């Protein structure tokens, strides 16, 4: 192959083959998240150095069981390899195979080879193979496949140095295709062939097009039957290869995984372990993040105070200490939680336990029109609705995917935690109830409410959807990967990617809103901005925001909120986490001094009663409002993209917010 400026390399393989470990090893920190062309689907790509002065782009494609797509993310793989969106041909494929499960991995790889794309096969889990007494003659296998076959240990990096040179040397397999299309009008297929492309490319493209279905059926076998024939033919070939090149000692093949499963998916003990684990995670999240949150709040407060002391007074200093800093604090306070949550989720997925959760929960999710697969977005939703909604792409059932997207925003995401933590800290007394901390219990209750609302909504929507259209539900099929020790590097990369993207994306908005709010709270129609002014001294009721707040106050009054909270709620329709920063800005603008957010709010007095302003009924009403309202612009955009309909996103927005209003109102009335 000619040395090009930049090769495009795609990683293709089944899920759970160590693909992401390999990808992280090859690209290091040179990764970026972008969208696939044609569809707004996130993908990770990165740069790797093939040789001195030669960089190549590696695209980490979603894991697949076959090139014939069964779900949205599998379709992306086929589109990329066939260059459907003309973003550029894939120059080399790195096929990734799990050394302990070669059969099914080679099935997918043989499909890739038949496309005529130069490829290298990288077999991972060299250590596990040795453990099991599996010995592969990889040179001979490579000879049969017509490409280089490397055995590596992606965890330790052993054997990795051979990958880059092999990529440079890679050529299209010189062998005849491993699969010969049959049972179909071959002349018809040949007529569809574009240029001198491999016939398998034509086959793959034609079989997935509904327009061709009638023509295909004329041969007597439908597209599904033809796919099945292909699978049978390919597995026969794969078994021949492995029969000749793989030596195994079955008596050593005692699976650690199966033993662990006897306990972890045990009908009784499995459930105990699952709920115990979830409980521990939520408790750890609350207690583990409380300390860092308070520390960040106090650190930023003292930073503000020293800025205030060092800089000369006036417009800009006031903007920094009362507009910018509360906004930045609001973003940073949120980082420990989001990092911890993504860490837990990465651990569940990396270890293989997530599939067991799907397995165990399947039966319980059915009454709600869902399957066990919806448990993944529901658990990820506790971190953030956006990755949760993206995680529905591997669902084969379009109806279930629609339901999961529709109800996921009810799940208590980490953006709600700072709001909950602040309000719980203000209105719920710090005492124990039967040995359980009351505040922790309230938080747990809010999580429970989120799940309950999501499931109830799913059941209702499912009923409605079923009355609209009758569709066949695809079979529920799930691979149960073996348990593996999570790779600290993969978990770390996931935490880093997600947290930094939160700080960048959400942070920008939150900080901007804080500064805008500060401006609107510091100036008013009768008080023009005066940059020379020594201090900002507009009575807040006469500021722009004060006027706007008083305008909407009548709507929010029945829920027990004053106009400042109303403004905070309005601004959190952009993103919930804005609430804390907004409250801090609004309640501190009038004050000269700078205190921590909690102290500022706790010292507010209700002018009518003379008691603490944040009362129990108002606090509960606020908690419930935040539990149910759809307050996240980014989620709305993602819902619209993923469901390909703004109708769903807008309906979600209106119904959830109305529901939140009614529940918050009812709670306030009942409690006061």
């Amino acid at each position, binding site marked *: 192959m000619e040395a090009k400026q930049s090769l495009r390399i795609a990683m293709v393989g089944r899920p759970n083959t160590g693909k992401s470990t390999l990808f992280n090893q090859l690209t290091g920190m040179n990764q970026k998240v972008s969208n696939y062309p044609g569809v707004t689907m996130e993908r990770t790509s990165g740069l790797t150095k093939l040789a001195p002065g030669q960089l190549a782009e590696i695209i980490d494609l979603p894991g697949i069981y*076959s090139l014939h797509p069964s779900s949205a993310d599998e379709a992306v793989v086929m589109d990329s390899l066939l260059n459907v969106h003309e973003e550029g041909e894939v120059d080399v494929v790195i096929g990734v195979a799990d050394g302990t499960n070669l059969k*099914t991995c080679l*099935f997918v790889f043989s499909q890739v080879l038949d496309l005529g794309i130069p490829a290298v096969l990288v077999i991972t889990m060299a250590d596990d193979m040795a453990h099991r007494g599996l010995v592969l003659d990889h040179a001979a296998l490579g000879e049969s496949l017509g490409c280089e076959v490397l055995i590596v240990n992606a965890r330790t990096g052993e054997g990795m140095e051979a990958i880059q040179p092999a990529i440079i040397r890679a050529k299209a397999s010189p062998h005849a295709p491993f699969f010969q299309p049959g049972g179909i009008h071959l002349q018809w297929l040949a007529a569809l062939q574009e240029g001198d492309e491999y016939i398998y490319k034509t086959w793959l493209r034609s079989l997935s097009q509904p327009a061709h279905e009638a023509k295909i059926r004329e041969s007597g076998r439908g597209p599904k039957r033809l*796919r099945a024939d292909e699978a049978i033919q390919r*597995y026969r070939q794969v078994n021949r290869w492995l029969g000749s090149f793989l030596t195994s000692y079955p008596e050593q093949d005692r699976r650690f995984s199966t033993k662990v499963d006897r306990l972890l998916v045990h009908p009784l003990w499995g459930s105990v372990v699952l709920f115990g684990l979830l409980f521990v995670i939520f408790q750890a999240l609350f207690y583990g993040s409380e300390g860092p949150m308070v520390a960040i709040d106090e650190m930023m407060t003292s930073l503000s105070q020293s800025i205030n002391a060092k800089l000369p007074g006036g417009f800009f200093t006031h903007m920094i200490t009362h507009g910018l800093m509360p906004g930045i604090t609001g973003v940073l306070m949120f980082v420990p939680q989001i990092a911890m949550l993504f860490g837990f989720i990465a651990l569940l997925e990396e270890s293989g336990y997530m599939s067991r959760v799907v*397995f*165990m929960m399947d039966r319980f999710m059915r009454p709600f029109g869902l399957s066990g697969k919806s448990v993944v977005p529901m658990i990820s939703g506790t971190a953030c609705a956006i990755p949760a909604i993206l995680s529905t792409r591997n669902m084969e059932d379009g109806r279930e995917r629609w339901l999961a997207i529709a109800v996921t925003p009810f799940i208590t995401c980490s953006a709600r935690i700072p709001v909950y933590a602040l309000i719980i800290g203000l209105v719920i007394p710090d005492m124990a109830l039967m040995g359980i901390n009351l505040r922790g219990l309230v938080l747990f209750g809010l999580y429970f409410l989120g799940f309950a609302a999501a499931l109830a909504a799913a059941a209702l929507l499912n009923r409605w959807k079923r009355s609209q259209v009758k569709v066949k539900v695809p079979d529920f099929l799930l*691979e149960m990967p073996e348990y593996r020790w999570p790779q600290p590097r993969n978990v770390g990369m996931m935490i880093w990617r997600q947290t930094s993207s939160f700080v960048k994306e959400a942070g920008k908005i939150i900080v901007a809103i804080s500064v805008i709010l500060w401006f609107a709270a510091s100036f008013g129609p009768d008080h023009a901005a005066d940059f020379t002014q020594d201090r900002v001294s507009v009575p807040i009721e006469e500021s722009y925001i004060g006027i706007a707040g008083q305008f909407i106050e009548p709507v929010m009054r029945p829920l027990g909120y004053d106009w400042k909270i109303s403004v905070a709620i309005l601004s959190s329709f952009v993103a919930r986490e804005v609430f804390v920063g907004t409250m801090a800005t609004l309640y501190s603008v009038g004050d000269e001094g700078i205190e921590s957010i909690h102290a500022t709010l706790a010292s507010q007095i209700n002018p009518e009663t003379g008691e603490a302003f944040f009362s129990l009924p108002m606090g509960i009403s606020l908690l419930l409002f935040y539990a149910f309202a759809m307050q996240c612009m980014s989620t709305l955009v993602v819902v619209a993209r993923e469901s390909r309909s703004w109708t769903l996103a807008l309906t979600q927005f209106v119904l959830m917010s109305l529901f939140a209003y009614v529940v918050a109102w009812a709670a306030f009335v009942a409690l006061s």
Partner: protein
Amino acid sequence: MNLSNLRIGQKAIVLEPEEGVSVKLFEMGCLPGEEIELLFVAPFRDPMCFRVQGTQISMRRSLAKRIPITRPHGS
């Protein structure tokens, strides 16, 4: 006999599944002629997890009933 009749630890050979069963089943490695073993089941024996061709695949009982097998052997 079909897959749903297997007891944990029992093995059998997969026969031709009923019409309309997902092709993904084939592509994941569960093919006629292969040996299959029931590994474990979820509460209410549904779904069920099998090992075939070295892969562990789980499916609902309703699908398992549509996949005929030979007479089971093993424990």
